[in-house]
């Protein structure tokens, strides 16, 4: 039915093809342009957050040596860094960026089902980014409450930005949620309703599965952030006491009473934990495709991979309070949440096994995207395993609020997804731009980033074992921390600055290759999934020329026995014998 309706739209596409520069690249409704707009904005704001992390590390590595960093702006940097990286970079890039680009191409659709709403989604996202960045310049500066924005401190004396700072932050988050919802409706409905003929759900690449389930999680979880933000706005602006208990602030009675700060934490983490998987699941999906394509082998245990995604998605809603073991909530909750949290390790571990087993008996091409994918499996294994420490309620007692937590979540949802982001960008760059990137620079970028980030975060865990608390502007002299720990801190800081600078290689490569890169083969890696079979590279508006593709197989027919070529595009039917690389494009 939808197939017919999409075919009908062919005429529309002919007539409504964007004509001017503005409709083509600015107010564009083409999912690919919107994806790039999302991606570029997210990377830009990510660079801002990266600079903030360098500023923080300067203070931590070399305390009190830089006049521009004081406790006030240090806590502002912490807050903005965290919020930007988690939401405005990773969520926006994986779903708004990759989701937008890949869903219609991998599902064989012309575009998203609601292109206008899709366009609005980007512009509202951009607005949310502008409001967020504006909070640096409002009176009192940005909020310094930490990215968790816990009340009462987020809106009471002693924290930076308790007036305009927190208001712009909450406003920006609300805008982001609106933008995400508009995008998310598109992603879900497109995956469900607008695939091409023959594309059953189980023939979809895992990238789509990851993005699809992450979007569902986002749609159901972001409301919790919205609800907590709205309630906090009420507390701040109208003087309600949802979260505000009777308290004294800077020696003055606040006149509030009865509110429960722990209630906010429940709401926040009810969003916050699924958020981790909103970032992780697309990374899981994409990395599966990178591994399969470059190992020239089908993904091992495809069905298990899909079910694991579903299981992780479902479980992610009943583990939130593992962020709150020492928050003062009813301690008996600890039993339940420790159990659910450790159960979620099982499907996650299965995914790791299957990635590694995909390499087994493969024919592994160690190209740049593959290096990033392998790097991901390594760092994710490390980060996932340290999660078993923190998820186990007893071990959380000494380790929560220390650098162990910082190291863990940066490894598992900082470094790992970012490695996938890089791998994915290199992987699809030829398709997106029609040019090849510089392979040598890509390799340098990988090696320095991978080794650099691991040497930042591995030792950081041990500061946590030592008991060094996170979110400290300075440690000063303490009995339990040996002098050498400060040396380690300085070394970490130097590495951070180095790794940050290395990213310039990436930017240079991406920008210069746009013009100078070798013209790309339409399917340089021999990919079997649909996006490599488009008639044009880069794909034009409408993606598929006059006729939509028809799918005859799953996305992982690599090295099928008895076939000459080591991949069979999804568009090739069982009767056709693949004879050449261009076969898939004869449709």
């Amino acid at each position, binding site marked *: 039915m939808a197939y017919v309706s999409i075919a009908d739209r062919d005429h529309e596409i002919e007539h409504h093809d964007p004509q001017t520069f503005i409709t083509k690249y600015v107010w564009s409704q083409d999912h690919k342009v919107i994806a790039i707009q999302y991606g570029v904005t997210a990377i830009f704001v990510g660079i801002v957050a990266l600079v903030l992390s360098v500023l923080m590390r300067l203070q931590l590595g070399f305390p009190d040596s830089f006049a521009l960093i004081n406790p006030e702006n240090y806590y502002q940097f912490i807050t903005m860094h965290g919020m930007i990286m988690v939401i405005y970079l990773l969520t926006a890039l994986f779903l708004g960026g990759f989701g937008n680009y890949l869903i219609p191409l991998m599902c064989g659709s012309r575009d998203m089902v609601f292109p206008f709403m899709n366009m609005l989604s980007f512009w509202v996202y951009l607005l949310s980014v502008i409001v967020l960045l504006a909070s640096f310049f409002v009176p009192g500066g940005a909020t310094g409450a930490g990215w968790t924005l816990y009340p009462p401190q987020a809106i009471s004396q002693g924290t930076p930005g308790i007036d305009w700072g927190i208001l712009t932050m909450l406003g920006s988050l609300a805008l982001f949620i609106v933008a995400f919802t508009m995008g998310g409706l598109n992603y*879900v409905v497109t995956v469900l309703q607008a695939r091409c003929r023959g594309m059953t759900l*189980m023939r979809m690449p895992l990238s789509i599965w990851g993005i699809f389930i992450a979007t569902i999680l986002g749609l159901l979880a972001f409301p919790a952030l919205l609800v907590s933000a709205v*309630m906090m706005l009420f507390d701040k602006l109208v003087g*309600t006491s949802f979260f505000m208990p009777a308290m004294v602030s800077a020696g003055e009675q606040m006149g509030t009473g009865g509110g429960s700060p722990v209630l906010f934490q429940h709401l926040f983490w009810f969003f916050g934990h699924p958020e981790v998987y909103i970032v992780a699941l697309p990374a899981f999906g994409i990395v599966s495709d990178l591994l399969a394509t470059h190992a020239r082998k089908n993904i091992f245990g495809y069905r298990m991979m899909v079910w694991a995604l*579903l299981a992780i998605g479902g479980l992610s809603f009943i583990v939130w309070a593992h962020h709150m073991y020492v928050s003062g909530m009813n301690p008996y909750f600890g039993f339940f949440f420790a159990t659910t949290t450790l159960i979620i390790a099982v499907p996650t571990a299965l995914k790791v096994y299957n990635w590694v087993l995909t390499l087994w008996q493969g024919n592994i091409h160690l190209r740049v995207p593959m290096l990033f994918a392998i790097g991901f499996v390594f760092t994710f294994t490390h980060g996932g395993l340290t999660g078993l420490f923190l998820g186990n309620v007893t071990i959380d007692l000494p380790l929560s609020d220390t650098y162990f937590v910082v190291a863990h979540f940066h490894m598992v949802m900082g470094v790992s997804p970012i490695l996938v982001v890089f791998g994915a960008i290199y992987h699809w760059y030829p398709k997106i731009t029609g040019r090849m990137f510089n392979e040598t620079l890509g390799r340098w970028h990988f090696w320095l980033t991978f080794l650099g980030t691991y040497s930042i975060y591995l030792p950081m865990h041990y500061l946590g074992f030592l008991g060094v608390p996170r979110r400290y502007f300075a440690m000063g002299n303490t009995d339990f921390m040996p002098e050498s720990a400060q040396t380690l801190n300085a070394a970490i800081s130097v590495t951070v600055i180095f790794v940050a600078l290395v990213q310039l290689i990436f930017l240079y490569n991406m920008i210069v290759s746009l013009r100078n890169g070798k013209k790309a083969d339409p399917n340089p890696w021999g990919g079997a999934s649909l996006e490599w079979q488009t008639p044009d590279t880069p794909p034009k508006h409408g993606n598929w020329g006059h006729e939509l593709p028809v799918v005859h197989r799953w996305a992982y027919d690599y090295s099928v026995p008895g076939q000459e070529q080591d991949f069979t595009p999804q568009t090739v039917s069982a009767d056709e014998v693949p004879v050449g690389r261009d076969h898939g494009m004869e449709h």
Partner: protein
Amino acid sequence: MTITLVFLGAIMVTVISWLLKQTLNTEPWVSDPAADAVSGTSLDTSNKTMGLTTFLAVATSIFALFISAYTLRMQEPDWRPLAEPALLWFNTAILVLASIAYHWTRNAAVSGNTARLKPGLLISGVLTIMFLGGQLIAWQQLIAGGFYVWTNPANAFFYLLTAVHGVHLLGGLWVWARCTTKVWTGAEADSVRLSIELCTVYWHFLLLVWIVMFGVLLST
């Protein structure tokens, strides 16, 4: 949080079990001519219907979370239950009528009866606006009685929940206004049918939300 968990659990169970049903018995690496013939549309419904359904899941999550927050906050000792204005019963009746009116309009649209659309939409819209007006009057009554938003968390929740519900209705009215304009400028039943059908679902949904919310408010 139990309430949210129940709602979300229901949604997740629906989604996951449906997805599992699609995926359990397939071996996608096996060539399957039946699968080749499958259209890429999983559910036999329009994109807009799917879009609305998904949005309703999001809205359900929002309302469920608010109600969860309500029940959690209620346990603190400073909670003083609010005596809801009797006017709310009247407002509820109006909203029920609005929903019925919309359903009547929908039936007209489905059966291609363009003539009945104008009165139908008009009545539905007017009733909805009356409901919103009634809610505003209820607020004024409370304020006149000294029940300000900051006086007690129970009051704060009352204003907050009714406001969020009202905002959703306003969003619906925007679509209603667009549709009504179309009908007034001579659109046929067929061209606005989908819009009216979806609005009807949305109105029923918001009626249901209101009844649940009103029930929670009354019983506490």
